[in-house]
């Protein structure tokens, strides 16, 4: 059975703007792949079209069929993780294997408080 797993150092899942995220990606893939990329991404969910951006990457070339490798990516100053009624902005670490696009995603939070920001109209409920 093929799998990919992302682990952050100490199991951290919330980060400050500007902070570095260190961790490891482990995998066991059959058939073998030519490349695995760890991506730090944000994306939106909600009522409208989705926006997304890859803000940092770590590439693992010539991966073994079963292996683990460390990574470090840097969180930018923003945007922060937030949610309102119409839109949520979400952060994640995503590992993608090529050429078959097999992927695994680990949700994280990015904000000055390490907590998702709830917009005013939402918190008023």
């Amino acid at each position: 059975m093929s799998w990919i797993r992302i682990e952050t150092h100490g199991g951290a899942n919330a980060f400050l703007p500007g902070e570095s995220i260190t961790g490891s990606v482990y995998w066991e893939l059959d058939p073998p792949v030519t490349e695995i990329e760890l991506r730090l991404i944000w994306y939106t969910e909600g009522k409208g079209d989705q926006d997304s951006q890859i803000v940092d990457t770590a590439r693992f070339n010539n991966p073994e069929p079963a292996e683990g490798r460390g990574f470090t990516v840097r969180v930018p100053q923003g945007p922060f993780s937030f949610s309102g009624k119409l839109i949520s902005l979400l952060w994640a670490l995503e590992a993608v294997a090529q050429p078959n696009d097999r992927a695994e995603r680990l949700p994280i939070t990015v904000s000055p408080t390490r907590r998702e920001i709830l917009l005013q109209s939402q918190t008023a409920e």
Partner: protein
Amino acid sequence: MIARENPFAVQRVLAIRYRLAGISWDELLDRLTALRSRAALVGPHGHGKTTLLEDLGARLAGRGFRVRSVTLHEGDRRLAAPQRRELFKDLAASDFLLLDGAEQLGRLAWLEVRTRARSAGGLVITSHRSGLLPTLHECRTTPELLAGIVSELLGKEAAVEELFARHEGNVRGALRELYDSYAAHPNPHPLAPSPDPSLPPSPGEGEGFVKESFPLASPANFSSSPGVGGREGSGEEAGR
């Protein structure tokens, strides 16, 4: 309810793909070939044309075509320069053109598309009206289809006949209303079990459509209904 928890968030809706009814994908592709690969997907707003076009594009790519897609928005009477490049640059027989919302184009712009598409391996458009190209498939919706989609998104059955009728079959419009209803409603969400009717109403009860038009219902058979994802967006463009 915050957006990421809303079961009717666009990303979740778009994950539901088109469900052909009465025809298989192979038959549809054979029909497209019989129409010399120039054909239209026809239907009103919110009936799944865009979703079907996307799914068709994936299958054409699987058959070795290079798929080149352009989406037109409300009022786009002509192709913008980037759209022209996407469709026509180095056009070859291995290219298949997909044009979403072709009815928006002015007459001259449409004639140009038809003429230049002769160099391509094929051209499929979506349109609210028939007549631009031979109809490959007419997209239809039913209450059972909407019920099936809602059920898939909620993980429970629901009656949606009134909602479907109010939106005149526009499934995307109905799903958008459901999004708004869930967004506006504090937890517990609107489909939580109704309170004892003998008790006085709680603040806010009776707001929204759910209490009136979205009662739980018996399971509906929707397995063979055509499905509708539908691209969300602004204005009427989202209706394709």
